[in-house]
């Protein structure tokens, strides 16, 4: 039975189209990695590219992550713009030294003489029933490394636009693809250009509390906000998009408006990216806050097996439970002289 065509564009299709358009647009762009050629990548994000552009532009490399990133560095030193796929989050770790010691630092080491316009595409995060080493959220490792741009799209339109921008960017970009959102769809005409990736975006305006989030949790946060609205609570959703370097102006403005914040991500909470956000919000919004900044994330355990992963993954109800804990009874009381005090 032929299924009715699903409307809109999926994130995977948007990424595929972005790669297609980037290769077509700039002869220096090439795409390589493990299985990205005839197979089209294990998630089919590079589907059809080798057919359209040939193996001059799109090809399978030997199976070696450090070598993939190391050769991309050399290529970029000689004027190419390689876009490489590191098949899964946890399989990018062998390349970590190249990423941290060379990719992130070459511009700085050479006092700006060498820039490395390399994009590392990393399908990351869980929720697809993968067995071990296929579901890590590795953003904090990268975001902790100065010199890298770490970005992650939350919508198909952003996926297209941010990947095009990443390829055009003269900084190395770790492009984290929330793999469980590959099949999420949105009505959008491609090509599209959304806001610059360095700018966080208010996905949904609200007045009572801010959900600060990114990547796979954008959809989850929007779902939570939808439910909260039905229950009479107005949540603002901020999608960071670029995690590093962070431009926290939008976040600060939002939290100052709402007075409450919950940071939502899929990664383990302890020492995670959310800790950075909570600290920054604390520093910049302290006098505006009605409640401590809360964090919602995965459990502080190694990513669990597929049959248990739903316990690990934050969902809308876990987000809403945190929102409920935001001290809705105001801590302030009237002081009788027209001011407010904390008793």
């Amino acid at each position, binding site marked *: 039975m032929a299924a009715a065509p699903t409307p809109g564009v999926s994130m995977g299709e948007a990424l595929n189209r972005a790669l297609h358009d980037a290769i077509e647009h700039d002869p220096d762009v090439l795409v390589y990695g493990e299985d990205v050629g005839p197979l089209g990548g294990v998630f089919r994000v590079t589907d059809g590219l080798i057919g359209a552009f040939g193996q001059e532009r799109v090809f399978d490399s030997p199976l070696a992550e450090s070598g993939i990133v190391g050769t991309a560095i050399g290529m970029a030193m000689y004027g190419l713009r390689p876009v490489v796929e590191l098949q899964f989050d946890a399989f990018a770790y062998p390349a970590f030294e190249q990423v941290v010691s060379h990719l992130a630092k070459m511009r*700085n*080491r050479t006092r700006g003489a060498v820039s490395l316009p390399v994009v590392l595409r990393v399908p990351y995060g869980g929720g697809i029933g993968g067995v071990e080493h296929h579901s890590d959220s590795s953003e904090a490792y990268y975001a902790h490394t100065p010199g890298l741009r770490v970005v992650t799209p939350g919508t198909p339109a952003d996926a297209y636009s941010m990947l095009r921008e990443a390829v055009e960017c003269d900084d190395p970009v770790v492009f984290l693809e929330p793999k469980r959102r590959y099949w999420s769809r949105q009505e959008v005409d491609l090509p599209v250009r959304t806001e610059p990736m360095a700018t966080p975006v208010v996905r949904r305006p609200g007045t009572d509390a801010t959900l600060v989030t990114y990547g796979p949790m954008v959809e989850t946060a929007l779902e939570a906000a939808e439910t909260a609205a039905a229950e009479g609570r107005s949540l603002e959703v901020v999608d960071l998009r670029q995690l590093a370097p*962070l431009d926290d102006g939008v976040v600060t403005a939002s939290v100052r408006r709402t007075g409450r914040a919950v940071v939502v991500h899929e990664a383990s909470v302890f020492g995670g990216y959310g800790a950075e956000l909570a600290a920054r919000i604390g520093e910049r919004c302290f006098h505006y806050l009605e409640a401590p900044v809360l964090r919602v994330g995965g459990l502080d355990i190694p990513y669990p097996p597929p049959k248990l992963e739903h316990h690990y993954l934050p969902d809308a109800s876990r987000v809403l439970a945190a929102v409920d804990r935001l001290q809705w009874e105001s801590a302030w009381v009237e002081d009788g002289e027209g001011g407010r005090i904390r008793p």
Partner: protein
Amino acid sequence: MKHTDERSRPAPALPTREPVRLVDRHGRRVGHSSFTAPDPARLVELHRAMLIGRRFNQQAGTLARQGRLAVYPSSTGQEAAQVGGVLALSDQDWLFPTYRDSVALVAHGVDPVRTLTLFRGDWHCGYDPHRYRCAPQCTPLATNASHAVGLTYAARRKGRDVAALAMMGDGATSEGDAHEAYNFAAVWNTPVVFLVQNNHWAISVPLRQQTAAPTLAHKAVGYGMKGYHVDGNDAAAVYAVVSHALAEARAGGGPAIVEAVTYRVDPHTNADAPQRYRDPAEVEHWKERDPLIRSERLIREECLLGDTEETERALAAFGAEADGIADTVRERLAGQDELDPRSLFTDVYAAVPPLLEQEREALADELREV
């Protein structure tokens, strides 16, 4: 670039156990079935560059003892391997050196003072890699090798005839990155020559604890590459073999590993304590095989610089040139350049992001306070 089945290439022959040698330690030529020594002018040029390198190493060592350099990894004893390898490069070729290879950089034409920027602690790399066709001196082991593969791949795609010399030590060949780079180069057939300076020690660990391979050149075989085992204290041999390997690689014959057998006469760096791990007699053994003595003997023996008087004059002129370079290095390093702390923030990203802007302002405030 074509991705053909490279396995159709004939299996490379095993490298010889006996290293290729064209000039023995007494400065006498040794016949070889596959390689010939370069012409006299080139032999003289190799000697001159080694003299400069030796003096440079000595000067840098002194500066390190005086505390003017934060650290210096000497390559005294390894001049033939470095100079022989680098002089084989042509004008558009790139060099991918390690921390040990300052002499190679100088021979490659990088401003000698700038090669010391890393060790001086001013910045991590003191020269523009594009200008000198020379990557930053690499401190993580073997990680530079895949950069050389990528760069030559890119150059070929752009239709440019560029080969690369990627340098590493014997210890570095144990790293996974060495393996990945060898394999990528062979599969992609990129023109890279991996020059392994086997100086027998990786800090305190001897070669036999590093590998069970008969020679490091043998490693090439498993990748479908050619491996060459060379006397690394014989500049003529290193030059001849690297030139040959580069020419073959350029012609599409595939990359190669050249193992240059040499010796680190000095400590690993000025902070090392070699008496803890090696026998002084071993050092003496190798000092007798000093690459400079060997090439000087050859020059005298064969009158490559003319008659006795002309030879003395020419050698003295080389010595004076080397001294002059060392003097310049000393003088230019004596003056303390003021480093601008604001430069800390400029070259992290293509443009300074807001976060770093804020930190730059905070640092400026700190500076005003003091």
